[in-house]
């Protein structure tokens, strides 16, 4: 009888219920070339990825983006599994359903279970498409850390270094709408007071550091099953200063390692989370006279289209390397196979090496 009672105990049931699978996707920075990252001469810029993460990951050496090489539209394509063609400089939703919508609709998940943390004002519609089969309210909620900071600080000069936008669209001014929504997000979702937030922000050195801080707070408070973090510091390359581009890569390398440590230490994420890290695309080759090397991604040459991806964590083989070319649109079908949703409108294919 004691055994029967024990088996029916809620405590025992809870202990044996497997933790829900989670996925974290980090887009690495806003265009990074192989030669400044994983090629031999670039590895000095990514010590954390090389030493800590690569040994634990499955690594794809050729991930090709055959679509438009603009950050917003490329990230939207990553999130939908389709090469989107929306205007890169307008704040428009993707035309095809996102992974977040597939996940929430198929698995009947609430809005709190899928989040995007995005650096740039132009990304505020990336959480949800305008596809007629999905409708509004079915996607991910989007946190824009710069909006949060502006609302909390009323544009104080001490925080301007965290508010700088990417150089591709330097003139977009945030649409603040009074800041009420952002202050509510701080308090109710992130459980941060304005003072706490401001105090922390003073210790941070870049917009991506701010994004990672917000992402970690979100993981603690909401523990979403899908968390998508779009980093962007590297995009300073458009201003043409090579040292700042390298500095951005080194910072992003460190921040990725920090996030992986958070995943491994947060109870809701440890042991049941798969982390993906990949650039949205590369940058132009030094050898193409149509471009200006690292500065832009305008030529569409092979180097600008081809980068890498690493996956690590739950269900992923450690120390495996695959040279077979895959496409960036393969990410969403792969997430679908992992999490149990069907990406009906995605054009990519699941990466069997991860399943």
């Amino acid at each position, binding site marked *: 009888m004691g055994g029967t009672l024990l088996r029916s105990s809620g405590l025992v049931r809870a202990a044996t219920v497997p933790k829900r699978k989670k996925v974290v996707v980090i887009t690495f920075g806003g265009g990074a070339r192989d030669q400044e990252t994983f090629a031999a001469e670039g590895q000095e810029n990514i010590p954390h990825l090389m030493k800590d993460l690569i040994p634990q990951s499955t690594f794809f050496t050729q991930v090709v983006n055959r679509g438009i090489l603009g950050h917003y539209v490329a990230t939207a394509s990553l999130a939908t599994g389709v090469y989107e063609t929306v205007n890169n400089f307008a704040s428009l939703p993707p035309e095809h359903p996102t992974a977040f919508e597939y996940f929430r609709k198929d698995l009947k998940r609430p809005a709190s279970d899928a989040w995007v943390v995005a650096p740039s004002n132009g990304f505020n519609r990336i959480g949800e498409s305008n596809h007629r089969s999905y409708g509004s309210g079915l996607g991910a909620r989007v946190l824009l850390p710069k909006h949060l900071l502006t609302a909390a600080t009323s544009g104080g000069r001490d925080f301007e270094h965290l508010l700088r936008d990417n150089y591709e669209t330097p003139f*977009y001014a945030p649409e603040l709408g009074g800041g009420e929504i952002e202050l509510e997000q701080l308090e109710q979702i992130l459980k941060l007071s304005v003072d706490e937030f401001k105090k922390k922000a003073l210790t941070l050195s870049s917009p991506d550091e701010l994004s990672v801080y917000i992402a970690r707070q979100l993981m603690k408070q909401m523990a979403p099953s899908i968390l998508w973090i779009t980093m962007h510091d590297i995009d300073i390359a458009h201003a043409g200063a090579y040292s700042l581009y390298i500095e951005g890569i080194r910072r992003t390398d460190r921040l990725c390692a920090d996030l992986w440590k958070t995943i491994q230490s947060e109870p809701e994420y440890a042991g049941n989370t798969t982390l993906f890290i990949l650039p949205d695309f590369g940058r132009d080759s030094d050898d193409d006279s149509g471009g200006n090397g690292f500065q832009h991604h305008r030529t569409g040459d092979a180097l600008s289209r081809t980068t890498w991806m690493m996956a690590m964590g739950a269900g992923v083989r450690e120390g495996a390397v695959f040279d077979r070319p895959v496409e960036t649109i393969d990410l969403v079908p792969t997430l679908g196979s992992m999490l149990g949703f069907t990406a009906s409108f995605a054009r990519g294919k699941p990466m069997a090496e991860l399943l």
Partner: protein
Amino acid sequence: MRPPELKPEHFNGYLPEARKLVVGYIGTLRRLPLSFLPSLLREVVDYDFRFPVERRAVERELATLSSLSADALDMWCKELAQIQISPKLESFDWINAPAQFVEQLSAYLWTTHQLDAFREAAVQYSSRLQAAVSAEQPPVPRLGITVVGQGVGVYEEAVFRKLRPHGAYFSRIKPDGGLEQLLNVVTARAKAHPVAYGHWYVDGGKAVAHDSVLTCVSYDGLEPARATLLRSIRSETERPGMGPEALRSLMARLRPSDLGLGTGDEVLDRFQVKILTEGSGTQIFSTTFAQWTAREVLRRAQPVTMLVRFAPRQRQKPMNELLSGNSDHVDFDPVGSLVDGEMGAYYNWLNQERLPGAEESSFLVWFENHGDAVAVGPGMARGTVSSTAADIGQVISWMS
């Protein structure tokens, strides 16, 4: 409008020499595909203010196209003719605004997934043109010099790693008077081989005293024009509906007089305006200014001699502050600027290697006021190291 509909009066808005040139070849222009013709017209529309070598290049291209039979011309352009153009682009005023057409075409090619096909078509056309037209050789072998690291004291990292495999690395250059020696070399070449816009001195800071025989562009010298431009950018971006693409188009229409530029040399003035309005970052980072200017000088003027000196740039700040043009309390970043300059030097060498006569060209990069330099040229063994103490002028003499 489509190319077959072209008439001479369509070019009435062109400058006199440009108009005369295109009308003379109008029969040929009518046969070119719309995916390509505006790119060609972009090189012609301001022909009157182009560098001499550019004018000759476009004249040769037009003459070559004109000499082809109808079938041969169709074959040359067949891949370009297969690029689909939208009715909206067809109705654009590509005759008078070819640069804006090319920008819109670029966005259209991305959206319709034709960019790769266009790239391939452009490469095919260029190959045919290069095979048919002899490239204009320089009167003497080219010499490119880049000076980096101004303001950097002790520096422990290895420098010039990208260039060392291509030339000889010197570790004990005598630094005193190095810049003066280099300017003397450049000036002597300019006097011995006078070529219009053939010998350049580009300074990312304040230009040092130099002979007027050199064509000089400097970041500090353009400070008033930069400040005017940044004010204009700020005022335009406050207007509703102004986005990055509209701003680019606006900047592309600016003339020297809009920025208070007037050296008396309209060719140079227009070149400088384009550096500031078409180069990303040239308005705010002096290292970007130096590298982009060098790139454009090499691409457009194909200089016989070019000396580029990098100077410290300002530290990164919030973009709005960088674009404000506020020069109160500027913090400089000499070490970051050295890293920028090293990459800039490599790109200067790469771009010089793309010019005719590359096999005879020489290139030198020197860490200012330090002992490090790399010399690339016919007289220099690749991948070698020299610890012989030498003047920079001596190294130059060994290079040819």
